[in-house]
């Protein structure tokens, strides 16, 4: 059955639309005045104001590599992160640590470690899968570049962003 919508019966003044027009003008000028006198809450002015201090502990920003307290790079080039990475953003070229060095028992290190930040989806699986706790998602979120090449973070850049992480993995330390 068709539904009949009852149209409200308008008085003569209402049918001239003038009260509605003036009401509309009143609403807009109120918004205008509130904005002029700073009473309106506006959005955050992004590049000047940032959320950085309010980011939660578990925030997943750009993935980075970290070194331990002995300045040893934690990554042992097991390539688990490369395999798990859903968008295949990570490319690792493993290298061998020659004998006679302080950390030669670790045997492998990444000769090249590239994360393509155009591909990265910030899912955090690389951090989760890493047995050495070498890769962490830090709080950097504004990753920009002028070229595609610039958007690929190489090892140096990754360590620059990651810095040093103490504790957690001790298995490579000297026995006391």
């Amino acid at each position, binding site marked *: 059955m068709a539904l009949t919508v009852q149209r409200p019966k308008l008085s003569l003044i209402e049918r001239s639309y003038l009260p509605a027009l003036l009401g509309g*003008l009143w609403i807009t000028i109120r918004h205008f005045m509130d904005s002029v006198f700073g009473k309106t809450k*506006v959005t955050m002015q992004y590049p000047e104001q940032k959320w950085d201090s309010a980011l939660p502990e578990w925030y997943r920003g750009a993935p980075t590599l970290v070194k331990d307290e002995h300045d040893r790079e934690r990554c042992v080039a097991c390539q688990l992160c490369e395999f798990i990475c859903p968008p295949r953003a990570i490319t690792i070229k493993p290298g061998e640590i020659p004998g006679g060095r302080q950390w030669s028992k670790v045997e492998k290190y990444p000769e090249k470690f590239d994360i393509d930040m155009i591909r990265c989806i910030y899912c955090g699986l690389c951090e989760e899968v890493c047995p050495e706790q070498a890769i962490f998602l830090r709080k950097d979120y504004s990753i920009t570049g002028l070229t595609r090449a610039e958007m690929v973070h190489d090892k140096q850049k990754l360590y620059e962003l990651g810095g040093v992480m103490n504790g957690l993995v001790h298995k490579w330390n000297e026995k006391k």
Partner: protein
Amino acid sequence: MPYLDLFLKPEVFLVWTSVLKTGGIIGIVLTMVAYSVWAERKVSAFIQDRVGPNRVGWAGLIQPIADGVKLLLKENFVPAGVNKFYFSIAPSLAMVPAILVLAVLPFGSSLFGVPMVIADLQVGILWVFAVSSLGVYGIVLAGWSSNSKYPFLGGIRSSSQMISYELSLGLSVIPVFMITGTLNLGEIVQYQVANGWMVFPAWFQPGPGVVEFVETSGAVLGVSVAKIALWIPMMISFVVFMVAMFAETNRVPFDLPEAEQELVAGYHTEYSSMRFALFFLGEYAAIIAGSGVIVTLFLGGWSLPFVPDGSQGWVWGLVNIGTFFAKVAAVIFFFLWVRWTLPRFRFDQLMKLGWYFFFELALLNIFLTAGILAWLQSQS
């Protein structure tokens, strides 16, 4: 000093003062165009609880210049299949009439004895109507020569809209001329200086039947029965003229020729770069010229109550010029305010409003004014 004598010869004096006034007014108006675009963006932002342009300069004040540079540097693209000749002259045809209207507007009283109007025509307001209706040619030609459906629809809408509203625009101001008895815009302003603004009739020369509130030299703040009686048709004239001016300048709620949601960008869909900028310029120049006409006819032109004119010293002359442009700016703000308040009319509603309502109202208003004037004459 033979050169000085040459400069002060009446003909030569007229030429170089006119050139100076023309240059000055075009400079002021083009600056106002640039900053009314800025104001448009800022006002719309404030009304919608946003911030608006604030990157280029303090509060985005250099934004118009950045926009201009951007438009200058863009490619002036001409699509295949357009009628090249009409396509390239249409933007100028849209802009020139808007600027020409400014020639007859008295934008100040006088400065060093020079009247602040470029051409003091006896038929001033007829010039305004004649020239401002030419603006539709630019739009129609742009719509037609673009050889594209959206501009074509925009052009058709524009012409029918202009024809419909030209009538009420012309008829609504006739009561003003019946009261003032002149078509000269400068004399209309002089009348308002002596007798109060058309929409604010409480300021007259002393005379019989005037109830005085305040009196200073010459001018009196007071009311009289005659002025109150004439105030009613004046308000009707003012409202009809204002609405018709909105339609004439293609502003919301009558912006059907552009109608972003239906027609992409209407008549200037196919335009880019400086040609597009000329349309934009023309549109805002038309708004400024229209506001100037409204201010001159109804809001007392350059006059303020109890402020002397330029014959009392050049400072007052400058104050008068400032007053005129301040009033124009206020009317422009009203234009912007309405734009961000009202939705667009449907085409049939627009036609109905023009032909069934405003046309009749303006016509009746003429008879009403005539009746009141006759009654006033029989009283005296």
